[in-house]
């Protein structure tokens, strides 16, 4: 019996590694090794044209150029961080709130046609990011659908969405008579004046933010819906029997029960929005006036257009760190009890 068991265990070891080997090899060569190589490249002056071994080791110079040395590299990186920060601040709350609200409404028992609405909302999420970017390009034309829709409700001239570098917060400040106060214009962080930091997203970036929200909401709604349907019926009924009003029920029962799902949705939202690339590539290529430049697009532009692979790799590592830090900080804020 012992001999048989040993034999079985041996077969399992051999089979286990045999089954595992192809997938593991693929991940090692195309995911794990590349991460280490990216780290290595970020300390070198590699242009992407010669074999990387022929490039010279330059220590932290790439990181220094991005974070500390005055110059176009640092300014561009600061601009990309600013743009992406506004993008995250706008898209994540908006898509989470709309998705949650839609999930709660679709989940109401007195409404029918669940599967139709679910399908309609989810459909944009499965389509090619490039294809929907081009469709939005058409919608955001000056005489396009978006302006026509807004014009029906608000007394607005047709907005120039796609070539508009004006910051949204700058526009609002200008509306109340604030123009470049000296204290903001004369102080700067990473080569970008405080006035530039508080610009808000440009109108063009705002259009891309609306596109991103439109694309992602359906997926998040499905995740919320699955979470809502996992709430035990007994909990629902207990709260109703106790006479909770719908609002009380929502804040005291639904929301606390949905906390893990909410945390998950916020996390994937933040991870996704810090990597925005496809839509930028297709719609604005970083313009106008660099107001849609993001770290991910900067990686592509520096690496594959400006032949600064080392610097681009450094950008991608800083971005990686940003994403990890945001995820960890958020875990502490949203669910401190799960530490």
């Amino acid at each position, binding site marked *: 019996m012992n001999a048989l068991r040993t034999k079985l265990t041996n077969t399992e070891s051999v089979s286990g590694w045999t089954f595992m080997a192809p997938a593991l090899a693929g991940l090692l060569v195309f995911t794990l090794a590349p991460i280490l190589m990216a780290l290595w*490249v970020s300390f070198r002056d590699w242009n992407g044209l010669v074999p990387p071994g022929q490039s010279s080791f330059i220590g932290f110079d790439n990181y220094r150029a991005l974070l500390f040395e005055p110059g176009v590299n640092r300014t561009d990186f600061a601009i990309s961080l600013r743009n992406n920060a506004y993008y995250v601040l706008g898209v994540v709350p908006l898509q989470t709130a709309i998705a949650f609200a839609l999930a709660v409404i679709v989940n109401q028992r007195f409404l*029918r*046609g669940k599967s139709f609405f679910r399908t309609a909302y989810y459909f944009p999420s*499965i389509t*090619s990011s490039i294809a929907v970017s*081009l469709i939005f390009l*058409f919608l955001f034309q000056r005489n396009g659908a978006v302006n026509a829709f807004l014009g029906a409700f608000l007394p607005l001239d047709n907005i120039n969405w796609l070539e508009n570098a004006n910051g949204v917060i700058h526009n609002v400040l200008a509306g109340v008579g604030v123009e470049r106060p000296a204290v903001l214009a004369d102080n700067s962080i990473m080569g970008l004046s405080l006035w530039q930091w508080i610009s808000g997203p440009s109108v063009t970036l705002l259009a891309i933010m609306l596109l991103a929200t439109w694309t992602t909401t359906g997926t998040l709604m499905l995740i919320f819906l699955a979470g809502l349907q996992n709430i035990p019926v007994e909990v629902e009924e207990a709260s109703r029997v106790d006479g909770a009003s719908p609002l009380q029920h929502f804040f005291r029962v639904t929301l606390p029960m949905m906390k893990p799902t909410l945390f998950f949705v916020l996390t994937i939202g933040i991870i996704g929005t810090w990597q925005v690339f496809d839509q930028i590539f297709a719609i604005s290529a970083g313009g106008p006036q660099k107001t849609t430049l993001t770290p991910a697009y900067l990686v*592509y532009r520096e690496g594959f257009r400006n032949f600064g692979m080392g610097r681009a790799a450094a950008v991608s590592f800083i971005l990686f760190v940003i994403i990890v830090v945001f995820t960890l900080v958020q875990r502490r804020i949203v669910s401190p009890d799960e530490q």
Partner: protein
Amino acid sequence: MAVDTQPAPAQLPGAAADSRPPDHRQPLWRRIAKRVLGYGVLAFFALVFIFPFMLAIITSFKTRPDAAQTPLNLIPDPATLSAFEAMGQVNLPRSAYVSIVVTLSVTLGRLFLDSLAGYALSRLDFPGRKIVFAVIVATLAIPGIVLAIPRFLVLGQLGMLNSFSGLIVPLAVDAFGIFLMKQFFDSIPKEMEEAARIDGATIFQTYSRVVLPLAAPALIALTILSFQGSWNEFLHPLIAAPSDASLRTLPVTLALLRGLMGEGTDFPLLMGASILTTVPVAIVFFTFQRYFVQGVAASGVKG
């Protein structure tokens, strides 16, 4: 998974309210108001999510001046197929071919490799299993953009830049698929496999004849996610075939096409190409909808 995947059963009016006494106690006008409001919000968002596609389809049958001057007219005047005829001149048929080859290869690769690996992680007790699983979960967290440059480097070193293998192989294994399959295998009972092993089947026979048929729902979910993911993938084909126009997938060709047009954007062509790019995924989506929903829900609940 408590996901409601069945269409709502046909109910008599009022049947839903009867199952919930408190709702029944509400005055009639409030119940009607709630429904009107609920359906109003749902219908508004359905329009927001679907109308752009309808407008794109309509626009693809318009002439360029018509699309530019009256972008909101819902009837093309005159209706024309010139956008679709122009697609041959911008290499779209070739890109469609590349997309199909890449998508099918990647999907088949993932089905085979992910299910093998998922099975090993779920059922086979081999030394180092826990570490391997931890590594796979960790790679889930690596952002795609971080991999762009080093993958370009690795493909260059292996001589795979500008080749079909470079487009396919790096995507043919994915950590999420392995994770999905492992979770599914964990959830099905072991008895049938044990019976097969006692009857003398080898591990591979047990896997291919007993386990895989049981895993059909997970395999379908994986097929759909892989199909959609690799069909829509943009960054990888962009960097893996940087200098060979005959190896561009549809998303890459579409994005570059827009860049080439500049001011005189040919919207009927762009809309037509966008819609055609959407069609294959749409067909798969509408055919296997409930598996799509399960796949997404699984990612959420497990997260």
